[in-house]
């Protein structure tokens, strides 16, 4: 059970935060198809940052002396770096779609093409191969939170909650959850959030009330870019052992699906990402999941093909989308360039 929950969260958390990234852009009226590309870029920047920091004396000393606070700080700094650079990349989309009123789908696709190309171009020059790994050791050894850090012995149990939510987790999980809650509150309960949303629903009405539509759309997409960049790094850290190879296995697009499935609302998005994360986790580790802890690996004994498990997340998403799309309500003005003269 612990394994199941931890693995599900591993996939669900990046999905959740990147889906929220999609919400911020679309609620402001811009379709952000570039989530995938921005994630790839964020993953690369974050991993490169960690890789460089590992070589500094400050961080390496902290690693040798087990100062886990310093190491966690490095992770947080990498998240910030990924977020800032993700936001900068997203400006390409904002500029094209807000200032030049270009086709947003094509703009997003361009970023999706650009970012893996640049990332792979640089990785190949830096490393002479197609993947950027950590400079030393692996992510779990360096950055994973461990029960020994809290004075527990290697054989002692932290109790169910401790074992599941503290032992063998990453700090990124909790930062993402806190951010998710904070940003959801901002989107729904503050003046700023309501202004952003109004630009995605009826920009002309918003404009007539003195709201700067361009500014709000820039804000929405930039927040979106920052979250997607950060989500990319979180994905790389927790599921790819802090490596970057110009690919996030379609997670950005999956996040878009989660966003649509979650009806552009934070609450349902949490549910959708957990559902999706669960199926992803089944695909990755179905043979080692012991659901009720009796030592019998039920799923393995069913003898179904691993290919089927790998396909399940996508089939489930498609089916769920089929059932929910009729009632789904996208922001009314999304994808339409704002033109003052139009009514």
């Amino acid at each position, binding site marked *: 059970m612990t394994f199941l929950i931890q693995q599900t969260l591993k996939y669900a958390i990046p999905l959740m935060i990147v889906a929220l990234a999609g919400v911020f852009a679309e609620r402001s009226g811009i379709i952000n*198809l570039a989530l995938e590309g921005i994630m790839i870029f964020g993953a690369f920047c974050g991993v490169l940052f960690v890789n460089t920091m590992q070589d500094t004396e400050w961080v390496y000393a902290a690693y040798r002396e087990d100062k886990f606070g310093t190491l966690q700080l490095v992770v947080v700094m990498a998240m910030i770096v990924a977020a800032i650079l993700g936001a900068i990349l997203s400006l390409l989309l904002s500029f094209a779609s807000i200032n030049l009123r270009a086709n947003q789908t094509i*703009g997003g696709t361009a970023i999706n093409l*650009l970012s893996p*190309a640049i990332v792979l171009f640089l990785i190949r020059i830096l490393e002479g191969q197609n993947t950027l790994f950590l400079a030393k050791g692996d992510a779990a050894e360096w950055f994973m939170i461990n029960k020994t850090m809290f004075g527990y012995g290697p054989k002692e149990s932290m109790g169910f909650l401790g074992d599941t939510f503290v032992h063998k987790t990453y700090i990124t999980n909790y930062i993402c959850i806190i951010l998710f809650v904070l940003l959801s509150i901002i989107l729904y309960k503050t003046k700023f959030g309501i202004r952003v949303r109004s630009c995605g629903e009826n920009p002309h009405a918003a404009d007539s009330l003195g709201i700067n539509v361009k500014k709000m759309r820039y804000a929405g997409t930039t927040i979106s870019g920052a979250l997607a960049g950060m989500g990319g790094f979180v994905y790389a850290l927790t599921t790819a052992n802090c490596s970057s190879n110009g690919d996030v296995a379609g997670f950005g697009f999956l996040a878009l699906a989660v966003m649509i499935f979650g009806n552009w609302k934070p609450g349902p998005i949490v549910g959708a990402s957990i559902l999706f994360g669960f199926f992803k986790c089944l695909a990755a580790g179905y043979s080692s999941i012991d659901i009720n802890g009796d030592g019998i690996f039920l799923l393995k004994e069913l003898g179904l093909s691993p290919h089927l498990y790998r396909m399940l997340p*996508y089939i489930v998403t498609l089916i769920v989308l089929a059932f929910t799309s009729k009632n789904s309500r996208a922001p009314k003005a999304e994808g339409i360039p704002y033109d003052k003269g139009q009514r």
Partner: protein
Amino acid sequence: MSRKNNEPRLLEGNGFQSVLSSVVSIIIGLLFGMLLIFIVGALDKNMSMKTVWEGMRLVIGGLFSTGRGASGELAWGFNSINFGNMLFRATPLIMTGLSVAFAYKTGLFNIGAPGQYLMGAMTSLMIALGIPSDKVHPVIIWILAFLGAMIAGAIWGAIPGIFKALLNTNEVIACIMTNWIAANVVTWLFDISKFKNVTESTKSGYIYKTTFNNVATTKLGLDKLFPGSQINGGIIIAILIAIGIYILMSKTTFGYELRACGANKDAAKYAGLKDKRDIVLSMAIAGALSAAGAALYYLSGNTELFWSTYQSLPAIGFNGIPVAMLALTNPIGVIFSALFMSMLNIIGLQITSLTAYNEYITDVIIAVIVYLSAFSLLIKQFIARRMSRKKKEGAK
């Protein structure tokens, strides 16, 4: 308001301006690529200015590179292998480009081309390798494999179309899901098939070439024209299909209906057109086109499919998007933009083998070009304004 009145005229009969705006995008993209080469070269201590200069020259003229001469300097000239391979690689790109362009005219964004391409690759290979060539003539097998791939692609493309038409599912998301499902289906079916190449131990993870069953696309003598390259008659077929699609789109009632549906769904519905049927049909045709591209590529006899593809989608499928965008979704334009893209591809290989840079530089150039094509209308308006101003000045 005056801009609005001008727009229809601008959109019609604007072939010249369209080409010009694409050329502007291409030039800016190439310049950006050269700039990136320069910046990276300047920052990297291991690269000399000579490397940078070579890289920049290859970005423009890599197609005419013949490697390095005896003195170690870059040598230039007609390179039949480069040219032939460019035509060969353009073949599937024309088809995926047509696929994206076709759906786009109907108002649909077909990002599902990679999945349709994979289904086409699988079906064509299974038919080409599954029917024994000592019982059936190889040409008949080839035709069956080609048609089979198109049917498989049509079915796969129709799925997101049906979801969109009947259930209002966003076609982009549905396409992405069907892409990954296709990647897994292909891996699964090949995994349990007897087509995995086990005789050549160096080729682990690949499917047999179709020549194992004596099936291969006819060369039509083109290999004499470009000796040493992979070229075959597929490029002719692709160009003919592109012309066929152009005629279908612009000269038939059916094509007009599809375009009307894409331009304004509600108006089309009001005029009595079956918008739901059109969406499904358009996606099915788009799917068939992508799959046909895969068939032309893998039936050539000198290509191999890496079958365990569940973690990645074929780039040729995605590259249909930039091909279509650069061509401004004109089927004839697709031929030229696909040739341009495959030229960049060849240039990338030259850069990788001759300099310290790598082939991803050309992907960056493609991305920049696509980004610029997002506001091609803007560039076109800019050009039109310049041209009319010049005319006025000339009148004075």
